[in-house]
Structure formats: structure tokens, C-alpha cells
């Protein structure tokens, strides 16, 4: 009898150039917005591409059945998600079509964390459903130009990589707009409708990217993305559309900063109990975590490694300069796109600042997961009054996150006022997780309300005056108007401070115009009275807080 052959790991069959036109590339792991834009980048390069359906609870159950016990919940969810999709395709189109007409494309290189070992879980799951011949490609998340994958069907080159990175950045920027607007929208549901339209505008921009004109030279391709106005012009179209959403930002809402494990913090769906949506329904404004910060973080590691070797290897200093240049260019690009959106999306925090803040508690060289960033982000938000509370989403049995959550005990010892909610997410214990979050949120609400009331008093502001300003300056009710950070955590408090500054200017303007044409500025009696007596009675508010 022939002995059993030695065990071999999963190895995908080649994906050839000829197969490209008939093969749909599957991908996922981000939000529907990011994925739609990435799809545009794929379509631009004539790939058939489709994001996997959004994660559901059923994916967790499927994943649990098929992979080794004890996996972290992102692994279970994403594995189950792929498997359920393939099962469906197998039923609808047959096994052969499921295997040959689709391929999966994901980032699979990480390092110390299990994220780098998803491959084994996926292949085990494929074995479990009898689709071992299905093709999966795991790419490095730190290289821009990885060349042809086996068979040449998938070319991970500069046009594809820049397309994906730009799609991620723009996805982040639009997500920031979304979360800054929806809690304050006057017409419920309007933000989501406009958001969809804006994503479609940007999808078309990615799909119609004039890549043919610039293809061929990788540096030229990168340069075009950095300096051309192609995407910034499209973003200006987006902000023009965004302007149509009416908002009322004179509300006391707790600002909740979301941090945590990459997949879980980015996700919007059952995978994290729809926690962002839940927080909004509970009356909070959510600060979503941009993928852009994660990419920035990843770029720091080769920099640290090069810095360590600069006295050992030749040519290291040149590489350091190049990498620093790349990082600066990355920030410049992000900020340029922010400017196209009236600078509404949040600025990326400096990685150096985050590392310095976290330094007494967590060494910045310890990577795997988010490392020191979780501590740095929580402290950054607290010390700069950017949020009332931080909600850290930790997957059940996540290895790196548990370490930083542990180190946070020391931070909380030093800063007992810091509101911090580390939420462990298993995927099937929603009530427990949300009630835990609600306990901290209640305190955050109290703080937001107190802050808002204090600002109203300080600025000598009343609801009537607010209404008066709104009538005289309708641009403040447009969602595209940026509320500057005036030192308060809450948007409402910052908004009131801004209005009080504005009110003084407006009063002076009215004084001038009143001598020529003393007409009322609104039909309502109260407001007419306010306007008619404004030059006499309304004092410019004293600004006690700058």
C-alpha cells in the first residue's frame, strides 16, 4: 500500500491573463463606501470585481463551524462571509462556476498578529465546503508594486495600488462627512441619500480615471495621482451636493471616538453589533477611525527599521529620506483632498505625536495589530478635547489589542477623568457589549450637556438668538459648513462659540445697513422684533473662551 503523501498547505492555481475577462475578483473587509470606490478602481483597469456582501451574524456561525476553535472574531466573520458567498454561488451557478469564475483577493501579510495567518483559516474553510480549488490571493499590505501574481491574471502594479489607496482615502473622507452630518440632519435620512449619490460620483471618477494616458511608468502614475486635480475636482462636486443637506448643529451630543482593532473599528454592520449606528441612535456623534491613519502607521515601521540600521547598512540614509518624502506626500495628498471638502474631514494625527503620547505606557516598536496607537489615540482625543469618550472595539481573543487594553489601566490611573470603554466583541453577545458601552456613554452625555450649557451661558446665547442667526446666515445650516474646533469636545459647543463670534460681525453689518434700509429680516413677529431692536439691545457676546 502506498503511504499517505505528506501534508501540503493550500496553494492556489494560477490566475492567467486570459481568465481575467471571465473571472470576478472578490474582495471585502472595509465599508460599503470604500469597497464601491475600490470596485471603480478595478473596473477602470478592466477587471471584473465585486465586493463581498456586508457581514452578517450568519457568517459568524458558518465561520465557527469551519475553522479551528478559538479564532478571533474578525477571522471567523470574514471566513464565514466568503464561505457563505461561495456556497450561494455554488447553488446558483454550480461548483465549477464557483471555483473557476471567481477569485478572492485580500491583504494577508501582517506579521506578529494572526491577521497574517488568515490564509490557513480560509483554506481550511474551503476544504470544509469542498472548494479547495477556489483561488485566493494574499498580498502584502506594505508594498506598492508587487508585480504579477502567479499566472499574471492579477497585476499588482502602480495603477492598481494607487487606485486602491486613493479609493481608501476618499472613502475615509466621505465617511467623516457622513458621521459629522447625520446626527444633525434636519430631514431624517437625507444624509444617507446624498452620501449614496456622492459615492456614485466618486465611483465614476475612479472608473473613468484616464489611466491609459499615464500608464507605463510607475512614477509617472504616482505623480499624476498626487498632483493632478482630477480627484479634487470630483470632490468639489461632492461638497456642492453635500451643501444641500440641512443640519442643526446647535445640539449637545457626546462625541465618541472609535478606536480598536483594524477590521472591527472600520466595519459597519453585524460584525461590531452596528455599534456606530447604535451610538448615533443613542444621541452621540461618532468619530469614525480612518483607514488612512492605519496606512500612515504602517509606513512608520520601515522607517523605524531603517533608522535602526542607519549606522550599519550603506545607503540607508537615502532610503530614510525617500520614505520620509513619501510620508509627507501622503499627508499632503490627504490634506489636499480635505481642502476640496472645505476641510470638514478630520486631519490625520501625527504618528510621532501618537507615539510620544503612548511612550510611557507602550513601546512604539511593538507592532502587530494597532500597537501603541490605541493608547496614543485615546490620550490625543482626551488631552486635546476632541472627544468626550473613546470606545475601543476589541475582538474576542484579539492578541495585540488585549495588550494595549491592559496597558490602558496605567493610563487610566494617571487620567481618571478619561472616559474609556473597551468593548470586547464576540459577535454573539450584543446586549452585554452595548450595555457596557451605554454605561460610559451616559457619563459622556452628561459631560456633553454640561459643556453645551456652559458655552451657551458664556456666549450669552439663547435659542431665539440662534434662530435669528440662522435666518440671517443660512450657510450655517448647510452640512458643508465646517464647524471649527474652538477647544470643546462637542460639535454643539464649538458651533455656539463660532456663532457667538459671528453674531458680533453680523450685528455690526446690520447696524450699517439699518441706517439705509431699516427693513425687518424675517416675517415672524419675534424675530422681526429682534431684528428691529438688534442695533440697540443685542450686545456682542463676551467671548470668555477662545
Amino acid at each position, binding site marked *: 500500500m502506498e*503511504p*499517505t*503523501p*505528506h*501534508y*501540503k*498547505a493550500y*496553494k492556489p492555481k494560477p490566475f492567467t491573463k486570459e481568465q481575467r475577462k471571465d473571472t470576478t475578483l472578490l474582495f471585502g473587509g472595509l465599508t460599503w463606501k470604500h469597497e464601491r470606490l475600490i470596485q471603480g478602481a478595478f473596473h477602470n483597469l478592466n477587471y471584473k470585481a465585486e465586493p463581498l456582501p456586508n457581514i452578517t451574524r450568519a457568517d459568524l456561525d458558518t465561520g465557527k463551524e469551519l*475553522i*479551528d*476553535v*478559538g*479564532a*478571533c472574531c474578525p*477571522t471567523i466573520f470574514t471566513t464565514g462571509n466568503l464561505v457563505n458567498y461561495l456556497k450561494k454561488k455554488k447553488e446558483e451557478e454550480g461548483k465549477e462556476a464557483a471555483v473557476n469564475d471567481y477569485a478572492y483577493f485580500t491583504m*494577508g*501579510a*501582517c*506579521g*506578529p*498578529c*494572526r491577521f*497574517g*495567518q488568515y*490564509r*490557513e*483559516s480560509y483554506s*481550511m474553510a474551503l476544504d470544509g465546503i469542498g472548494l479547495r480549488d477556489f483561488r485566493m490571493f*494574499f498580498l502584502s499590505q506594505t508594498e506598492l508594486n508587487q508585480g504579477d501574481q502567479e499566472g499574471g491574471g492579477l497585476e499588482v502594479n502602480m495603477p492598481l495600488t494607487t487606485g486602491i489607496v486613493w479609493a481608501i482615502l476618499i472613502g475615509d473622507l466621505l465617511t467623516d462627512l457622513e458621521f459629522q452630518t447625520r446626527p444633525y440632519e434636519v430631514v431624517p435620512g437625507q444624509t444617507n441619500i446624498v452620501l449614496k449619490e456622492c459615492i456614485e460620483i466618486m465611483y465614476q471618477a475612479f472608473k473613468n480615471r484616464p489611466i491609459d494616458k499615464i500608464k507605463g511608468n510607475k512614477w509617472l502614475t504616482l505623480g499624476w495621482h498626487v498632483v493632478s486635480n482630477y480627484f479634487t475636482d470630483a470632490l468639489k462636486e461632492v461638497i456642492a451636493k453635500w451643501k444641500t443637506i440641512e443640519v442643526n448643529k446647535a445640539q449637545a451630543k457626546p462625541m465618541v471616538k472609535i478606536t480598536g482593532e483594524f477590521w472591527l473599528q472600520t466595519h459597519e454592520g453585524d460584525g461590531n453589533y452596528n455599534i456606530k449606528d447604535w451610538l448615533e441612535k443613542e444621541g452621540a456623534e461618532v468619530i469614525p477611525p480612518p483607514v488612512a491613519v492605519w496606512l500612515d502607521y504602517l509606513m512608520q515601521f520601515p522607517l523605524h527599521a531603517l533608522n*535602526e*540600521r542607519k*549606522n*550599519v547598512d550603506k545607503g540607508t540614509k537615502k532610503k530614510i529620506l525617500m520614505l520620509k518624502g513619501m510620508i509627507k506626500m501622503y499627508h499632503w495628498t490627504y490634506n489636499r483632498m480635505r481642502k476640496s471638502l472645505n476641510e470638514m474631514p478630520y486631519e490625520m494625527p501625527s504618528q510621532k505625536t501618537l507615539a510620544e503620547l503612548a511612550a510611557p*505606557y*507602550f*513601546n512604539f*516598536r*511593538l*507592532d*502587530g*495589530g494597532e*500597537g501603541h496607537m490605541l493608547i496614543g489615540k485615546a490620550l490625543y482625543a482626551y488631552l486635546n478635547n476632541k472627544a468626550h469618550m473613546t470606545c475601543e472595539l476589541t475582538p474576542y*481573543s*484579539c*492578541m*495585540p489589542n*488585549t*495588550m*494595549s*487594553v*491592559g*496597558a*490602558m*489601566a*496605567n*493610563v*487610566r*490611573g494617571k487620567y481618571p477623568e478619561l472616559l474609556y470603554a473597551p468593548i470586547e466583541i464576540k459577535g454573539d453577545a450584543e446586549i452585554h457589549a452595548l450595555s457596557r458601552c451605554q454605561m460610559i456613554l451616559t457619563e459622556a452625555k452628561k459631560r456633553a450637556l454640561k459643556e453645551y450649557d456652559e458655552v451657551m451661558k458664556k456666549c450669552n446665547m439663547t435659542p431665539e438668538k440662534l434662530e435669528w442667526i440662522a435666518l440671517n446666515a443660512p450657510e450655517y445650516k448647510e452640512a458643508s459648513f465646517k464647524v471649527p474646533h474652538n477647544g470643546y469636545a462637542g460639535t454643539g459647543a464649538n458651533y455656539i462659540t463660532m456663532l457667538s463670534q459671528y453674531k458680533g460681525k453680523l450685528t455690526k453689518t446690520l447696524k450699517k445697513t439699518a441706517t439705509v434700509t431699516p427693513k425687518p429680516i424675517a416675517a415672524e413677529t419675534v424675530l422681526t422684533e429682534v431684528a428691529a431692536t438688534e442695533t440697540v439691545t443685542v450686545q456682542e457676546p463676551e467671548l470668555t473662551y477662545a
Partner: protein
Amino acid sequence: MNIQTLLTPFARKPSKELLSKDRSTVRVGIPKVLNIWNTHQFWIGFLEGIGIKYTNIVFSSNTSEEQSREFGKGRGTVDCCYPVKAMSGHYGELIFGQKKKINVLLSPLIYSMPSSLQGHVVANNTCTRVMAGAENIKSGYMKEKDVFVENQIKYASPYCTLDDRIIVPQQLFDGLKDIFDLTYEETKKAVEIGFNALDTFNKKMQKQSMDILEQCAKTNKPCVLVIARPYHMDTGIGHEIETDLQAHGYPIVWMQYFPTDPTLMNWLFEEDIKEKQIKSPFDISDVWPSSYSSNTNEILWAAKIAARFPWITCVIRLSSYECGMDQPTFTPTQKIVENSGTLFFKFGDLDSTKPSGSVRIRVETIVHYVKKNSASIIEKKLARMKTQWPPVKAEALV
């Protein structure tokens, strides 16, 4: 022409004082946890290299429930795997449990490990919890008040990449210069002494394993391979399960000290190399392409060894409670071993308590199967080999 030779006469020579500060009275405590278990010789060598007396290097005792109860109670900050959680007790023992107080508590952040697979795998990183464990445990001793300061202990936690020897002196100099008042030159020298000590120790251990394997081959007797992480050698983490087996007369080989002798390696893997499945005996890409993690890589490599070496008829796999790095390896490791017909037994979710009764029953079961099947396993595995192992061949010729 080397310009340095011209400049040397004008260069300022380091004073003797800088190179040899008296540190003979400094007592250094090291928590005997995690990857200290297979790098301890480096740390001993290093500390001796900077002038710490051997008798002043204090390791905490093996992990135990008593240690956790007495010294680690209330210091935990988060629920995680048992080997990291147990660190609290080790810290406490060094801070509060020493008759002669320590001056420095040294708990390095070991990012990567020296490994015999180095150069054949993607990376040699340590587990993310293991590398950051010290930061987590430290917070338990600082959250309310700084226990280290209160006890006049300097806490030292240098970051180091032990797989990249050339930059270790700079890393340890950066991390320890203020603690021990070091110069770069003496740090560099001490690092060299440390690595020499580690290499010497590893070679000695590999030689002992080689003697066992040769003996088994010559007498055609089975042996048992332990596949586990280094800290499972801690009697409070691995619970001496392999010792119970050894008591039944089966020699035990730990994967960390499996010999890397070229003749043996070529004998085991020559067919795989010929078939271009792998490029070298230390290449594990055929079974584990995501080879980032040092201990995980070695686990997969050891499973391949077990699948090929005829006289290893049984594998004992040890895994701790909530070990995230072990989790994705469970099925591949078992399949690698069992596909060859070798017996595979896993002791999973090990934590603070040794379940003595069930361990005894399982050990008896293992012994039963090893006794019953070893001869046929050896025969089948030998039949797979195209040639005889040279030491056995040489013995036959004699």
C-alpha cells in the same frame, strides 16, 4: 587606504573608568517567563558582560498557583493567555519576595528570536502578546502608584530584535544606558558575550538531543517529540506532562533543541528538495506560507521533522489557554504528523491548574498506544526513506 588609521592617534581614547564601572553589587531580577525560557543564557551572558556578578542575577521561580496568589493578586489588568497572565506573579515575587532586594527588574521586550529557521522563513517575530506582555503587566504595578519607585527598583524593559544581532547592541544601549550607566562599547562587548553563551548552550542541548536520537535509531526504539512553545518547559505552564511520559521509559526530545546537523537534515528532507517542494531542510513554505512568527514556524517545522524521523513515533502537543498563535496551527500540525502515521496527542487550554487525574489517564492511554504501535510506525516510516541514516549505517558496518 583606511583613513581611520591616520585619525586614530588623535582620537580620544575611552577612559578605563567608562569601560569598567563597578556593578558587582547591583542585583538584577529577571522574570522567568515567555521567551526568557530560550534566551536566558543570552541575558546571563550579557549581564555578566557588563559586570553584574553571576550571584546577583536573580530569576523568579517557576510559575505556580501559589506564586500568583501570593505575589500577583490584584495586579492583572486584562484577561489573556495564561503564560502572559502568570507574569504578574513573577514580577511580584521579584519585587516583594526577595530576602536581598533587587535593584533592577529586567523584563525585555523581545520582538524577534534567533531561530535555526532564520533565512528560510519570512520573519522570526515573537507572538504579539509575548512581545508586549511586559508593557501589559507593568501597568498592573503602576496603575495606582508606582510600585517600582516605592521599592527603589529600576524597571528596565529594553526593546530588542534578537534575530538581528548587529543592531542589538544599539537597542540594548538605548534601553539600558540610563539604568546601568553603560557605554556603547561595553554594551556591544556584552551583547557578543551574551550571544556566545546562548549559542554554546543551544549547541550543547542539541548534542544531547542528537545522542538520544542516535541511541533510538541504533536500538530501534521509539522516542517522543514535544511540540510546544519554549515556556511550556516551565513546570507551572507545561505541567511536566512530558516528565510523566518519560517515567514510562520513553526518551523525550524538545523541538527547541532538535539537532540541525546537516547530515540528519539532508537525510530527512532530501526527497522534498529533489521534488522542489522546498528549497532547504529549514524551508516550511510547503506547509506554512505565512511564516512570520518564530515559535509558530518552529512548531510547523518540528511537525515536519516528526512526520519524517522514523523513531519519533509520538508527538505531544502542548498549548496554553487562549493561545492565539497556536489556534490556526492546530489542524495543520496534526495533519502533518498524522499523515505520516505518527501518533499525535494534544494537551490544549493548559492554565494554572494541573488536572492531575486526567493527565494521568491520558498519559496511560498514550503509553498504551506508543507501546502497541511504535514498532510498526518505525517500520513504515523507515520504508519511506530512500537511504539509511548515516550513523545507523556506520553502526551496521562496524
